[in-house]
């Protein structure tokens, strides 16, 4: 019996609302361990190939209190909320955790985590901050080999090339599905609410890939039925780390906007690039990471960040750009003024919104978004 679109969307929404409760059931059903990971560029395929379930730890919108004993208030809310959910036992169902160093704050989070929660499986991935040199590639390959060995020891499973290729194929197929969904959404902005779309992506990071892929392909066949009632939407590109709080999406919807492209870690960055099936699988994972669009936590050479933003706008014929920044996210703050300049040179309107996971009042966001979308709608 195939579930209908609405029911599948409900399943995804439930997983986003309470990911770990759902995971508990799933774990019991399949008898596998689950490993949590922090954003971004985490090579989930390796966890999967070690017969475990990789699950993103994305923080939540609940108040932060316990983490205040570890982090000053000028750490971003994503990191503080992640630590809070560990401290208040929300993450207890996870068997282990991996934190990639993508900025100074995540580096400290990993360091604190090791001290505060001794025992159990934990690893931290120290990514190279350069992406374009052979020496950085060699370094990353060695770092991932080390990580792979540790995983094998913990899981008691050998990650063979064959099992890794299998996992890579599963993930590539899943990424392709998400890209198709995005393409569909661009063509039919009225068919999916913003919240629904980003919930599907978020759920894909919180559910086993097998399950999510199956539900997603099932759902997509039913989506076509929603393509009626065409409506003119203001086409927007969203740039930032995560889309938080999710109510921002409701506001965009309500005010007549449609997100047609993004570079979010809980958006396009998660599924844009596939792993090429042409040589050694670990090297293929490394190459994928190094060729991805430039996340500002890495060293950005030449003008690639600005080029990539303009490219996103032009490819999707967007009317404007929303910089959706997490308060205290340094890497985005440093890039913003020059990105803004690049957009202004091309007369592309833009809006900067700074948010936190625990944002209580949305009124100011609404006012600013409303004015922005209205102006774009008149152009």
């Amino acid at each position, binding site marked *: 019996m195939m579930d209908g679109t609405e029911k599948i969307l409900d399943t995804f929404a439930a997983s986003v609302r309470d990911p770990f409760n759902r995971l508990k059931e799933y774990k019991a059903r399949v008898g596998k361990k689950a490993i949590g990971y922090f954003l971004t560029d985490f090579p989930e395929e390796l966890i999967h190939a070690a017969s475990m379930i990789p699950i993103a730890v994305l923080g939540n919108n609940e108040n932060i209190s316990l983490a205040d*004993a570890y982090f*000053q208030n000028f750490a971003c809310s994503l990191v503080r909320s992640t630590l809070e959910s560990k401290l208040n036992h929300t993450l207890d169902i996870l068997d282990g955790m991996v934190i990639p160093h993508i900025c100074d704050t995540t*580096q400290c*989070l990993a360091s604190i985590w090791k*001290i505060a929660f001794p025992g159990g499986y934990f690893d931290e991935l120290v990514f190279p901050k350069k992406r374009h040199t052979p020496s950085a590639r060699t370094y990353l390959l060695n770092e991932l080999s080390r990580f792979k060995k540790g995983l094998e020891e913990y899981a008691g499973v050998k990650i063979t090339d064959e099992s890794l290729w299998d996992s890579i194929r599963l993930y590539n197929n899943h990424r392709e599905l998400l890209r198709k969904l995005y393409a569909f959404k661009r063509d039919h902005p009225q068919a999916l609410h913003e919240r629904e779309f980003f919930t599907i992506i978020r759920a894909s990071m919180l559910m086993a890939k097998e399950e999510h892929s199956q539900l997603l392909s099932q759902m997509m066949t039913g989506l076509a039925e929603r393509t009626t009632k065409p409506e003119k939407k203001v086409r927007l590109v969203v740039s930032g780390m995560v889309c938080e709080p999710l109510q921002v999406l409701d506001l965009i919807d309500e005010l007549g906007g449609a997100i047609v492209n993004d570079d979010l870690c809980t958006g396009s960055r998660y599924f844009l690039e596939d792993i090429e099936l042409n040589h050694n699988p670990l090297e293929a994972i490394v190459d994928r990471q190094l060729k991805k669009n430039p996340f500002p936590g890495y060293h950005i050479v030449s*003008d690639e960040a600005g080029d990539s933003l303009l490219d996103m706008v032009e490819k999707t014929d967007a009317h404007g750009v929303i910089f959706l920044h997490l308060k205290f996210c340094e*890497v985005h*703050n*440093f890039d913003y*003024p020059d990105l803004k300049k690049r957009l202004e040179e091309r007369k592309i309107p833009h809006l900067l919104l700074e948010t936190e996971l625990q944002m209580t009042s949305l009124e100011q966001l609404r006012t600013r978004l409303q004015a922005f979308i209205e102006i774009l709608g008149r152009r």
Partner: protein
Amino acid sequence: MGKGEGKKITTSELQRELIGNYYLEAKEAHQLQKRVAWVTAAFPVEVCYAMDIIPIYPENHAAVIGARRMGQTIIEIAQEAGYSQDLCSYALCDFGSIFSGQSPIGGLPSPDILLCCNNQCGTVTKWYEVLRRHFKVPLVVLDAPFIARDLNHNILNYFKEQLEELISALEALTGKSLDRDRLKEVLEISNETSNLWRQYLEMGTHIPSPITCFDGFIHMAPIVTLRGTLKARDYYQLLITETKEKLAKRLSAVSEEKYRLFWDNLPIWFQLRGLAEKFARHHANIVGASYTSLWAYSFDASEPMETLAWNYCDVLINRGIKDRATFAIQMLEKYAAHGLVMHSNRSCKPYSFGQYTIKKIVQEQVGKPSLVLEADICDPRFYQEEQIDEAIDSFFDTLTATHN
């Protein structure tokens, strides 16, 4: 001040002269057929000196802006250009100064190349990317991966390869190849200077101490900017002679030294004197600082690439919180200090996050308290005098109760 016959020059006169000449030379660099590189505070600058390239330190310049209390005005200029106040205030001082030309020393000579090593933070990488877009000159980033486990060959090999990439870039810039023997000489001078610097800092272990960490903050300019030159070496020889004279006279930097403390993180530049006085009133001397010890390198000139990689990867803030807590405990012991003073510095996330955990570890392992001061290096808007006073007073209440 002249160097008249029979009149001894003091370090403060010498520093004025040294740093004055250094900036003068840098400003005339292009006439002197020399190249200017802007570098980060813990960059392997020995390579620059070996190639006759003048290194300029925006961080040092920002510290001067902070100390001269020009921080807020200059930071606001950067903010107007779209840079968030949440960013590192050194970077903001640098941007504000570039955009407006405002500077306590008439600005910095523009760079021919930008050299950035991320061993101290990821911030500098993003900061130098902004500089690259502004000045449109080449940028070389040396990526020193964080030492999450141990300083292993993967890190060292990666760094050594990048050193070669750096040398190629500098050779392309100058049109000259690096004289490897000259690099060894520079490393020897740098090593000698680092040893003198360490020797000076360790004079703070004397009871009572003839120096304070605030003296260290003032005397660090040459080790940072002129490390690898004979001038810097001579400066620290003089400083040691001066300090030895104080020691011989049993001069105490703080009258009736009762408490000895150790500073963590960067200084609060616009409050050096104010804070020194506040602690002195409690007869407390902050005798050393984790920050100033960052420049106490130890080079083996016979293996230049190897020694540069070891020294510049193994920077205290490129290590985890556990290692930093161990270091703090060692310093408390070495300096016979009663506790830590931690500057929780909004500008420096990697140095500041984890301080609460270090405080806890230090309390648990050696029973010594830590005072956390929430402030900033250059932005006085993040310095609340009343809260600082309250925190200091209550810290001394605890110390007094424990030690009486």
